[in-house]
């Protein structure tokens, strides 16, 4: 009794042990209420049924660097289908001895992307670095200059083709998209209606119809004797498609700029081009950076559709590998490998987009 009255000797009463620490956390997050307890148990059971067999299949019983006959014997996952054919899957029909070139191009691209993550690096010099980088990548793939052996574009394939179509597609589509967005916002009725029709038409149809168009209708548009290679045709279709989506995103940015900014620019005596170039677009484009990353993600995923017009992108080289009688029946392993590549790329991009959104959000 005395103890509790005397302040200096009062024992600190700790919360019950079941409310703190790991036990407390488990109680609060997994077993709060009968319904959540039931859910936890059901999902834990499902995980117990699925995860250990999967790990068994994918890691413990798997074979990594074997022939296909040895794979059949092991009973687990046959990652050998990936390790044996990895050069074909990643680079397609690109000449074997020259495959360091597309590899170097990919490394340059990744280095540029990582360097651009930090917003402090966003200066004019970065734009030049990108321009030089993109040019070098194209040069590495194509060759023909500086003693590099020229490689026909029909031999391009695999991951470089996927990256080429999406990165060049987005780069080329962006200016077109901005022009379309400005056209849609303009007060000139004819320009506006052309832009609206284009944007709504493209957004209303699936990409595959444009790719079909690129492979069967584009050749009819050209004068006799003139042909364009299939990769460029698909690239044009992807640019046309992406530009319409970029236009809608940029339009959102233009509408997000305060009306006072437009009026202030006009009252300074700037003409349309000056006010857009100096006042409106810099602000509008800043708003649309995060959604632009989302468009890059979809463009990256959408390039896989070129499989349907028989271009040898990452997915098509994988499928070709799987038609080899030796490696038939190991689709899951090969597809999981490709899915992993796509997942890692998209995951980093979408995380980055979320981070940017938080950083650029100046509202309270």
């Amino acid at each position, binding site marked *: 009794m005395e103890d509790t009255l005397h302040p200096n000797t009062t024992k600190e009463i700790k919360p019950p042990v079941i409310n703190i620490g790991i036990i407390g956390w488990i109680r609060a*997050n*997994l077993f*709060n209420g009968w319904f*959540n307890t039931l*859910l*936890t148990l059901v*999902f*834990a059971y499902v995980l117990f049924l699925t995860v250990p067999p999967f790990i068994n299949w994918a890691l413990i019983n798997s074979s990594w660097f074997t022939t296909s006959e040895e794979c059949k014997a092991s009973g687990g996952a046959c990652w050998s289908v990936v390790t044996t054919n990895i050069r074909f899957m990643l680079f397609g029909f690109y000449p074997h001895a020259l495959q360091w070139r597309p590899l170097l191009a990919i490394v340059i691209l990744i280095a540029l992307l990582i360097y651009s993550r930090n917003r402090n690096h966003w200066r004019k010099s970065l734009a030049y670095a990108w321009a030089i980088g993109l040019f070098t990548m194209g040069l590495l793939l194509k060759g023909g200059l500086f003693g590099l052996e020229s490689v026909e574009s029909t031999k391009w394939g695999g991951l470089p083709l996927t990256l080429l179509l999406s990165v060049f597609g987005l780069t080329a589509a962006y200016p077109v998209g901005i022009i379309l967005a400005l056209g849609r916002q303009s*007060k*000139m*009725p*004819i*320009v506006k209606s*052309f832009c609206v029709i284009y944007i*709504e*038409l493209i*957004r*209303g*149809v*699936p990409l*595959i*119809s444009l790719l*079909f*168009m690129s492979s*069967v*209708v584009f*050749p*009819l*548009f*050209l*004068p*006799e004797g003139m042909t364009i290679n299939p990769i460029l045709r698909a690239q044009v279709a992807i640019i046309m498609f992406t530009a319409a989506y970029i236009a809608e995103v940029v339009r959102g940015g233009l509408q997000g700029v305060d009306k006072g900014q437009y009026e202030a620019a006009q009252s300074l005596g700037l*003409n*349309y081009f000056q006010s857009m170039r100096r006042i409106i677009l810099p602000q509008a484009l800043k708003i649309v950076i995060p959604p632009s990353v989302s468009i890059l*993600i979809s463009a990256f*995923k*959408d390039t*896989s*559709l070129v*499989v*349907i017009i028989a271009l040898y992108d990452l*997915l098509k080289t994988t*499928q070709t590998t799987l038609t080899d009688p030796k490696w038939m*029946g190991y*689709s*899951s392993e090969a*597809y999981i490998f*490709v*899915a992993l590549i*796509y*997942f890692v790329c*998209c*995951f980093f991009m*979408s995380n980055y987009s979320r981070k940017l959104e938080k950083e650029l959000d100046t509202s309270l």
Partner: protein
Amino acid sequence: MQTTAPEKIPFFRDPTKLAIFYQFLTVLGVGLLSYYLISNTLANLERQSISTGFGFFDREAAFEIGESFIEYSAADSYGRALAVGFLNTLSVSFIGIILTVILGTFIGVARLSTNWLVAKLSAAYIEFFQDIPILLQLFFWYAFFYEILPSPRQALNPLPGLFLCNRGLIFGVPEWHSAFLYGGIAFLIGLIVVYFIKKWAAKRQAATGLIFPTAKVSVAILLGLPVLVWFLSGAPTAMNIPSLKGFNFKGGVSISPEFTALLLGLVLYTAAFVAEVVRAGIQSVSKGQKEAALSIGLRPGQVLNLVILPQALRVIVPPLTSQLLNLTKNSSLAVAIGYPDFVSVAGTTINQTGQAIEGVALIMIVYLIFSLSTSAYMNWYNKKIALVER
């Protein structure tokens, strides 16, 4: 007083004249480009002696289609073949949309669950399925059916009457009986009755303030009436269960591997996006709304119905429709796994007739009809639910 006459504005600084000039340039540019393309095309068509127009509609298609909702054989016309493809696209999209909304809503709600395990699993699902191209997922499910699933003899049987094998998904259905037709009619009648009850209840509430339990009564009518009719017309319970005969199943309903793989891929992929939409919608309603509704004495059910849902739906519905439209557009990837949807049939038609322009135009028109009708509906809906601001 001296006034200077306003300086005459030179034409290159006069916005109205400039506007006319730019628009003239645009029309000229677009016109010249189309003239160039069209004249090239006409020359090419003539040189390759490709006919134009939609005359091929009546000609014999001479190719088989794997599955179809209307009767079709290779002797039928291209027009009928395209109709088969159109119905296939429509059916996979329709079933896909229903399943996607259900699955997406569940995952979206689970994402916000207080249960740590459930919330993390849903988050992982969303991230995983969003980041892998839909086409790759379709290929995976297709290979799953043809490589991993066993032959009919060793078919998986997860539920009684439901079989999963490399011939697709096969399940039992009730034996056909006229009672089901009457039940269906009763359901339609129930719908009409519910519509009028709802109108009457709203009128009564506006006049007297009394709340009629519309939801409970509606469910009772919609479920009770068909069951009652089914019971009165003999309560048939015979089932048509598939059974193994030789190398394949007989009886029941069987769904092809292509259709199942396409449906599975579309639903799992789109549900991840729908889940994000649902989550954002629920989070957009501020907590104060719920607390305020509870404090004025509404019951939890009423809080959800009258306060939370109307506000959340305003945020959810526009992006939801665009996701469902994406599902419809993505169903065109059926061509890659051999399901005869509209794009696939049109592709075959292009190959056989050589009339690429008409074929691609048909594909575009069909999808434009879907998109334009959806956006017309969206505009109507947005107008209906828009906040009336003072």
